[in-house]
């Protein structure tokens, strides 16, 4: 059976993806992601091995222990407002990356921006550079 340390869980998709018996169920709405660990009797520790946060451990089967269930409010993108990540996942990225790389040249904290807006920003920047290059050539 799987025991979850809720304070460590990132709310990522690792365990639900690697479980071969679909005993870990991830459901997502527009605003929330929930993970539900069913009481499992398998002698398998793939989820434990592949948890990036080491939040899972195997414990002996016990009918009386309630099935763990954690819900995460999804974080809204600073630009478009769409919800794209769990807070612990973003915190983990913030602690893993060097501090000086977490703000772009214009001071934007890009980790708090969704991937689609990150691409749009990059496209705008490339366009500005091109337009600048053109105007530089004009006499």
């Amino acid at each position, binding site marked *: 059976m799987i025991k979850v340390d809720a304070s460590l869980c*990132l709310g*990522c*998709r*690792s365990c639900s*993806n*690697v479980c071969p018996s679909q005993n870990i169920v991830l459901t997502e709405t527009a605003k929330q992601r929930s993970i539900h660990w069913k009481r499992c009797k398998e002698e398998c520790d793939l989820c434990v091995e*592949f948890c*990036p946060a080491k939040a899972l451990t195997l414990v002996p089967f016990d009918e009386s222990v309630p099935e763990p269930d954690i819900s995460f409010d999804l974080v809204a993108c600073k630009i478009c407002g769409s919800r*794209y*990540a769990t807070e612990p*996942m*973003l915190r*983990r*990225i913030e602690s*893993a*990356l060097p501090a000086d*790389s977490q703000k*772009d040249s214009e001071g934007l904290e*890009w*980790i708090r921006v*969704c*991937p*689609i*807006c*990150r*691409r*749009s920003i*990059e*496209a*705008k920047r*490339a*366009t500005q*550079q*091109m*337009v600048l*290059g*053109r105007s530089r*050539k*004009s*006499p």
Partner: protein
Amino acid sequence: MPVYIDVARCIGCRSCEVACQRVHGGSEHINVHFVGDFASVPIFCHHCEEASCTIACFSGALYKEGDRTAFDVEKCTGCGLCSLACPFGVVWTNKIAHKCDLCEGRAEPTCVTTCPANALSTDYELASRRARARAVRDAAQGGRR
């Protein structure tokens, strides 16, 4: 040898997206963004020297291999951390992560060989050579107007 883009040449036809999908089983790793009426810009992996996605990846599925940011599908758990760690939003996660692999096993990335406007190339110098040539032409014609 990453792929370089000459934004001035992109015509926004999205052929690169289709080409990428064709050779990657339906998932594309290049995305054309339109900036008002000014320009269209294909956005894809820069194969960063110090790649955030490889730092965020806990399982070692994303790693540096020379100039390339490579991906080992066998090690990926689909957690999604890499997608959130990429500053350019060009690592996707759909059960497993997927990103530009520079068309491993092909002589040239398919987006480059497909682009009808020659906006994509693997030659870093090409864009700047073109810019210089344009400048020379403009100067010979008495400046750009």
